[in-house]
Structure formats: structure tokens, C-alpha cells
């Protein structure tokens, strides 16, 4: 086979390649859109999960807003302190220390703890289950356990165990996607330092709560009396702790008859 056609083809294509290469180089130099070099840095510093916790559609939009000075630098919760420090340095602002938050499940209604209302056989999503006669368990405030939150979590921080969602505190970045997804609003963002939590949020009368679940808050107010710091109060049939006043002494945990207050290690 003669070498000429091959050389010709290679020459033409190679020539075209060089030509277009030059054209593109010229175009990119001439028509270049000036990008704030800080944008690239900011985009690299944020977590990059596109979770939307900052309130912007994705990391790109947030980075742009930060560079333009429209957004605060402490909105990227998944990035944590590392991102905050980096952004502070890039933007020349001071990084204010913010309390690290974490998602907590305000329910201990595992299988066997909360009484079932009926046997649910429909689609395995919390949203559908809740729509059917107030949900398959007697408690209308607790975790349904079909894992709508697990499906939206971008950080692999949640799993369903024994009919209730369990959050891995180390993996959780407090992005808040699960909080928005939960049809019962049973997941709340709380300061990570608040190690004493009331893991119940029922608003039923004490008797109803007792009938429905063995670990429900029955509004007995023993914790209120035990607390010396005025940090825990029964509001709307359920105890609530004010993290600002709580000293983690654990007196309320000791007196709670239903063990609905929990002290984490």
C-alpha cells in the first residue's frame, strides 16, 4: 500500500487540528470572561456536596455569592471549621466561631417500644405511611422508620435500625436536608455540645402518650424540679431543654421515669 494517501490524510487532519487549536487559543484569549480568581479558591474550599444547606442551589452559586459579598461565609455547614477558616482567609474576613450543630432524632420509638396502630403494607416511604390514618404507629409525633431521610442524606450519616433512624454524629454535617424531608419533623439541628437531649416531642396528653409508647415524655415535670439551672421546662406536654442554660449535670436524666431524656457520652 502506497504511503501517500495516509500521509495526505494525516497531513490534512493534523493541519486542521493545528488550525483549530490556534483559533481556539485566539478565541479564548480574546473573548475570555474575567473570573474572579477568588471564585476558584472559594469553590475549592467549600464542601462540594451540592446539598443546598446554604440556601443556594449548589456549591457554584454559593461560591459566586460569597465572592460577590452577597452571602455570609459561615453558611457551608458540611465544610465545617475547615471551610470557614479557608473562606475567611480568602475573603479577608474574620472567622467567627460558631457552635457546631448536628442532626438529632427526637424519638426513641423503636419497634416494640411504640405500639402499632395497624399493619402497614403500602409503599415503604414515611410520607405515604403518615398520610394513611395518621401513620402506622399509635404516636403521631415519632419516627416512622421508612427512611425518607436516609434517602436524601448525601453524607451516609443515617441508617434505619430497629424501626427508627440512627444518625452517625461524626458523619453528620448538619446540612439540614433530612430536617426538611421528615414528614413528622422529628429530626432537629441541635448544638453538638448539647449532650443532654429530650428524645421525644409528643404533644399528646400524658395518658395518651403513655398508652402509645413506653419511652414517651409524660409531662410529669420531675425533670423540671430536679434541674437547678432552670434549663428544662415542660411545654405543650413535652419537656424541652434550653441548651444555653444546660450544664450537662445529668440530674434530669436520673429522675426521668420513662427514660426519654438521654445523656450522650
Amino acid at each position: 500500500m502506497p504511503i501517500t494517501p495516509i500521509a495526505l490524510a494525516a497531513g490534512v487532519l493534523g493541519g486542521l487540528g493545528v488550525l483549530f487549536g490556534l483559533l481556539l487559543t485566539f478565541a479564548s484569549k480574546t473573548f475570555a470572561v474575567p473570573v474572579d480568581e477568588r471564585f476558584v479558591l472559594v469553590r475549592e474550599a467549600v464542601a462540594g456536596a451540592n446539598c443546598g444547606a446554604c440556601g443556594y442551589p449548589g456549591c457554584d452559586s454559593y461560591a459566586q455569592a460569597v465572592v460577590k459579598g452577597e452571602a455570609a461565609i459561615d453558611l457551608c455547614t458540611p465544610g465545617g471549621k475547615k471551610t470557614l477558616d479557608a473562606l475567611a482567609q480568602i475573603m479577608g474576613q474574620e472567622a467567627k466561631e460558631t457552635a457546631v450543630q448536628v442532626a438529632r432524632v427526637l424519638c426513641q420509638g423503636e419497634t416494640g417500644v411504640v405500639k402499632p396502630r395497624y399493619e402497614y403494607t403500602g409503599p415503604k416511604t414515611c410520607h405515604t405511611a403518615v398520610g394513611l390514618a395518621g401513620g402506622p404507629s399509635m404516636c403521631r409525633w415519632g419516627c416512622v422508620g421508612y427512611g425518607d431521610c436516609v434517602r436524601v442524606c448525601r453524607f451516609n450519616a443515617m441508617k434505619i435500625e430497629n424501626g427508627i433512624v440512627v444518625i452517625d454524629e461524626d458523619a453528620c454535617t448538619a446540612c439540614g436536608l433530612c430536617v426538611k424531608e421528615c414528614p413528622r419533623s422529628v429530626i432537629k439541628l441541635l448544638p453538638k455540645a448539647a449532650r443532654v437531649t429530650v428524645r421525644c416531642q409528643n404533644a399528646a396528653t400524658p395518658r395518651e402518650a403513655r398508652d402509645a409508647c413506653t419511652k414517651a415524655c409524660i409531662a410529669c415535670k420531675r425533670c423540671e424540679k430536679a434541674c437547678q439551672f432552670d434549663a428544662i421546662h415542660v411545654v405543650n406536654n413535652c419537656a424541652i431543654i434550653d441548651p444555653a442554660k444546660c450544664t450537662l449535670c445529668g440530674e434530669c436524666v436520673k429522675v426521668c421515669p420513662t427514660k426519654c431524656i438521654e445523656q450522650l457520652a
Partner: protein
Amino acid sequence: MKFSFKGGIHPLKEMHEGKGASRHQPIRDLVPETVSIPMDMHIGAPSAPCVQKGDRVLLGQVIATPVGGIGIPVHASVSGEVTGIEVRQLLNKQPSTCINITNDKLDEWAPLHPLGGVETAPADRIIQQVKDAGICGMGGACFPTHIKMSPPADKPVDTVILNGAECETFLTADHQLLLEQPGLVVDGLRAIMRGMGVTRGIIAIEDNKMDAVKAVREAAQGREGVSVAVLRTKYPQGGEKQLIEAITKRQVPSGGLPCDVGVAVFNVGTAAAVAEAVSLGKPLISRVTTVTGAVNKPSNLRLRIGTSFQAAIDEAGGTSEEPGKVFAGGSMTGIAAPNTGVSVTKANNGVVVLGQKDAVTPEPTPCIRCGRCVSACPAKLNPQRLKELCDMGNLAGAKKEHVMECIICASCSYVCPAKLELSPTFKEAKEKITARRI
């Protein structure tokens, strides 16, 4: 000519849509020992109870007054003593306040205020009379009828359609009502037409009920502007938008209401209630409900509002096998009841008991892209694509693909060979889109 629409399915065709057992069973009255009447049967804010524990109430007495713009009053469906007002979990998402009344079996009526014959009653007072009678759509949605009868001024209605299609599986209540009281239904249509100032009224019936067509045609002889339309038997022929398209060839616009194309649709049961409210002054205290499925004596019962499902099932001879699921409504669009203690509401057109082997939810398998759901969808959507989008959590994308047009008829789920949970997914997506304003 038989009217119909594009798409749709023929559920349980080999067993006559499941209607064989209760078809042509004469309507029997059930007088319950006690009733527990929920306050939020209708769409709109729950009514506020205006009686107290220990009061003696008369049949048809107002026991709860309307709250808000589209509320309706609730009436006592038996005479007797109010034994309690309690909060109970019914089929709804939220628990509802219920008024419990023990029946003294005297059926002593509260004073009635009839307007006069349906042809002679003052037309401008009919809508108020309908509201005072606590009438709401009895086909299943329970939308207050007086609101439907007062469309906005810029959307004049020229046609009233009475929906007697009863395409839903298992149910025969409307069929039996049309057979036994065709005159009352036609009277109700005339009252609605006069109240709304409309000259054209059509009673739509599927062609599996030709005896009802004959009865209604006879009853409608010589009545002004009333005609009967025969529809092809197909599910969901009774869907509001499908019915309008089949009969008038008008398409309700996306996101619109029937009044956008000049039509108002009412259930035949609603029409009968309107007729009784206008000519006799009787409020809505009972309705015809089919109790069928795995019961010993499938029947069409006239149930007082607030009767428990258990009492209805007992009247139908009790369950014939261990029940797996009990549906409020037919098996396609009905809602599974959490227990048989729940009350019959104004919208409850059926109590269907399924045995344990029939109530099994099949395990879904992956989609094979056969396209059956696309040809079955009466709203002309692509359920397969919508399911993909919803599963990915892309609700905005699903909305762009018109998931909001889904009428949740479950035709797609019925035909799906992979047994995918299509229509529950769309229901969930619609609720989320509405709640989050996506």
C-alpha cells in the same frame, strides 16, 4: 352513540368489575345503635361542634356549624343523646373531632324547612338551602356542593353533568340509587340547574347499567333540558375531566377547573340529596353505600353518617373470611381503613372487604419499559418517566412533566407488569410539591 375518552383500563373485567355480588341488591336501611360523626368530612376547615355532652338532639338537627368560607354544617344522623365529643383518628392524616350520639330509635325529626317543589322553589334560595343541608360531593371528594354551584362570574357554566358512571370497581351504590329513585335524581338535577341558572343537564351512565339508563330516561321524560348520555364502560370514565371530555369534547385546561370550560359535574347521590333538601327540607344524614367483597351478604345499604364500618359489615352478614384489608371506597381509589371502628362519612360510597390472600402487596421489580402505563394513563402522562423523576427526588422535573395533572386513578399501577408502586409515588410527589411550593 356511546361517549368515551382516550386511555383507561378495564379492571377486573372477567368478574364484571367486581360488581356482580352487590348488583341489583335492593337498598336496605341500617339503623345503627350509635353513631360517631366526624367534623371534617368535607374539604375545608372542620366544623365547630355546637352541642354538648348530655344534650338530646333530634334527627337532622345542626350539631356543628361551618367554619371559614367553604365550610358546611353537620347534622345529627339519629335522634338521641350526645354521649361524648372526642378526638379520634379516622382515615385522615390528622385526628378529627367526632360527636358520638346514642340512637333512641325514635327518629324524631327536627323542624324541617322545605323550599317547595324543585320546579317551583325560588331559584335564588336553592344554593343557600344546599349549604344549610350540609351537602358535599358524595362521589368521593366531598367538596362542598354550594361552592361548586356558585362558579365565579367570569366563568359562566352552561352544562351540568350528573356523574352516574360509577366506573370504580366493586361499587353499585349509584347504580342501585338510579334504579330505585330515578325521579329523585332527575329532581335533584333540575334543582341544581335552576339554582345555577343552567338550561342543559346531562345524566351520564356507563353502558354496563342499561337498566338504569332506561329507568332514568323514563323519569326524565318531559323534563326541561334533561338528557341521558350513555358512556362506554371503562375506568376511570367517572373521573371529572375524563367525563367532561367524553361528553362535551371540551378539555379542562391544565391546572384548571371544570367551570373553566363551562361545566359543573355532580355525583348522582349528591343530586338526590339536593332534591331532598329542596323539596323536603331534609339535611344530608344518610347515604347509599355498597358493602361488598369478602362479606356473606353483599348489599347496598342506606347508612346514617357516622355509622361504624363494623356495623355496616355486620349488616352485610359479617366477613366471610379473615379480612386482610377494608377499603373506604372501591379497590382502585379507595383508602385502606386502619380498623373497622372508623365512621362512614358523606363521601363514603363503598366499604370493600378484601380477604387476606387478595390484600397482598406484590413485590415490585424493575421497570421493563413496556409502555403499558403510557397507553393506560387517562391524563395522557408518561408514568414511567414520572416515577423515575420522583424516585430521584427531582420534584421540579416531575412537575415539568405534569405530575400535577395525575388524577391518581391507579390505572398505571393496575397494568404495570413489574408491579411498580406508580400511583402512590405520584400522590406523594403531588403532596410534596403542593406543600413545598416547588
